[in-house]
C-alpha cells in the first residue's frame, strides 16, 4: 500500500522550519537518521540514501572557505561571496564578513553567525578567532 503522504511527511516543510529557526537566531542542519550524513540545504528526503528520517541538529558553526570571489559594481559596494565547507560536511554559499573581501582566502577557518541582508535573516561567516587571541 502507498503510505499516506500526510502521515509520511510533516505539514510544515523543512524550508519553513529552517526559516523559523533562523528567525529565532538559530542555525540548524539536518542529519539523516539512516546514513547519518548531514544535509544542507534542507530537504524532505536525504539526497544521499533516500531516507525520510531526517532530524534537525545544531552544527558546530565551524567551516573552511572552499572558494571565494568578489562581485564588482553591485549597489551595496564590494562584498565577498564564498563557498563554505561546514565541519559536518555540507557546503553552503554565503559571505565572509569582518575582513575586506580581498582578505578572504581559500582554506581560511570561519565561524557562522546569524545576521541580515536587506532585512532577510541569513547565516554569515567571519574569520575564526584563534583561541589564544580570543582569551586575551
Amino acid at each position, binding site marked *: 500500500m502507498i503510505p499516506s503522504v500526510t502521515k509520511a511527511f510533516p505539514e510544515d516543510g523543512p*524550508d519553513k522550519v529552517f526559516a523559523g529557526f533562523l528567525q529565532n537566531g538559530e542555525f540548524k542542519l539536518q542529519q539523516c537518521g539512516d546514513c547519518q550524513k548531514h544535509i*544542507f*540545504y534542507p530537504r524532505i528526503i536525504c539526497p544521499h540514501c533516500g531516507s525520510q528520517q531526517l532530524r534537525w541538529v545544531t552544527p558546530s558553526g565551524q567551516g573552511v572557505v*572552499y*572558494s*571565494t*570571489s*568578489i*562581485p*564588482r*559594481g*553591485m549597489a*551595496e559596494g564590494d*562584498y565577498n*561571496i*564564498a*563557498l563554505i565547507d561546514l565541519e559536518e560536511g555540507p*557546503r*553552503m*554559499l*554565503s*559571505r565572509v564578513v569582518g575582513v575586506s*573581501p*580581498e582578505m578572504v582566502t*581559500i*582554506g581560511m577557518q570561519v565561524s557562522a553567525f546569524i545576521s541580515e*541582508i536587506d532585512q*532577510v535573516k*541569513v547565516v554569515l561567516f567571519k574569520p575564526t578567532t584563534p583561541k589564544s587571541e580570543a582569551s586575551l
Partner: protein
Amino acid sequence: MSPSRSGLRGSVAVVGVGLTAFGDLPGRSARENLAEAAFLALADAGIDKCEVDGLFTSNFPDTFPCLHVAEYLGINPCVMDDSNIGGSVYVSQLQHAAAAIQTGLCNVALIAMGSNTRSKLKQTGVMDAPREHFKYSDEYKPKAPMNAYALATARHMHEFGTTRHHLAEVAVAARKWAQLNPRAMRRTPLSIEDVLQSKMVCDPLSALDCCLVADAGAAVVLVSSERAKNLRQKPVYLLGVGVAMTHAGIAQMPDLTTTAAAQASKIAYEMAGVKPKDVDVVEVYDAFTINTILFLEDLGFCKKGEGGDFVSNGNIAPGGSLPVNTNGGGLSCVHPGMYGLMLIAESVEQLRGSTGDRQVKNAQIALCNGNGGHLSSEVTAIFGTEDTL
C-alpha cells in the same frame, strides 16, 4: 557500450544549417531571428517546411516555446521538445532528435533558437535570464551567472596554479579565430595585456574573461542518414552524444574543478568509438575563459590541472596544435544567452569544409561540448564526415 546507445552512431545527419547576422539586430524580435535561421537552414537542406515533424527549441523568457515557434512557422510537428537545462540544451536535443528519427517518431527534425537579448538589454536595461531563483544562495546576492564561474576559477587557481595569464590566453586565442570569421562580432586585435588590464567584474574574472551578449538566430535540420545521402549538402553525421549534470546551484557542485563534461564526453566517445586524439576540431561553450580550460581537461585533451599550460603559447589559436572555438567562440564571435546551437553550427560547417579562412584542413571529426546553468549540465556531441562512418 550498451547496444541501445551504440545504435545511434551515424544514424542521423545534419543536412541544413542557418545563421542570422550576429550582434545588434535592434529592429528584430527573438522569434523573428529564430524564423530567419530556420528558413535558411531548411533552404540549405532543400527541405520544405511542411516536412518538419520534429521541433526542438528552447529559450529563457518563454514558457511555451514550441507552440509559439510551430504556430509562427506554420508547421504541425508531432514531436516537440522545448526542455531547458541551460545553454547546452540544443546539444542535448541532438540526442532527442536522433532517438526520435531512429525510432520513426519523426522524419525531419528542426533544432532552432532565436534571441534579441542584446537589443533588449540596450532598450530596456533587462537581460534575458532564467526565471528560477536559487534559494539558500540568492539571499547573499551573488552576481549571476558569472559568480559561479568566478568561484570555479578561484578554486582551479588554488588547486593547480592556474593564473589570469592562462585565462587571457583563452580570450586571445578566441579573438584570433574571430579575426578569421567575417560573421564574428569582435575582430579587433586583442593582447594578453589587454585582458589582464580589463576591469574586474567578479574577481578573479575580468570583463574580457566574459562572453559577449548578442542578438542572433541559429538552426539546424536533421534527417536519417539514409535520406541525408540524397540531399544537396554534404551530410555531417552524428557519431556520439552524451548528456550529464552534477547540480543546479553552484553550492551543490561536488568538485568545482571537474565538470559533468567528464561524464558526458565518456558516453559520447564510447558511442562514437573515437578518442580525443582522433578529434580534428573542438568547439566548447566559452561563456567565460575558465570554461575552455575546464572543458579541455574534462574532455580528455589534457590532464586535469594542466589546462592552463595547454592553452598557453597560442596552442588553441590558429596555427596551434588543437583548433578550439574556430568561430571565435562566445568570447569573440557571438553569445545569444544560450549558445549551444552555435557549437553545432560551427562543427558542421568545419566538417563541410565551408568555413573559408578559418577552415581546419581535412577536418573529419568535430567535437562540441555545451554547458548549461552554472557549470550544471554538460552535453558532448561528436560529428564525423562520411569517411568516419
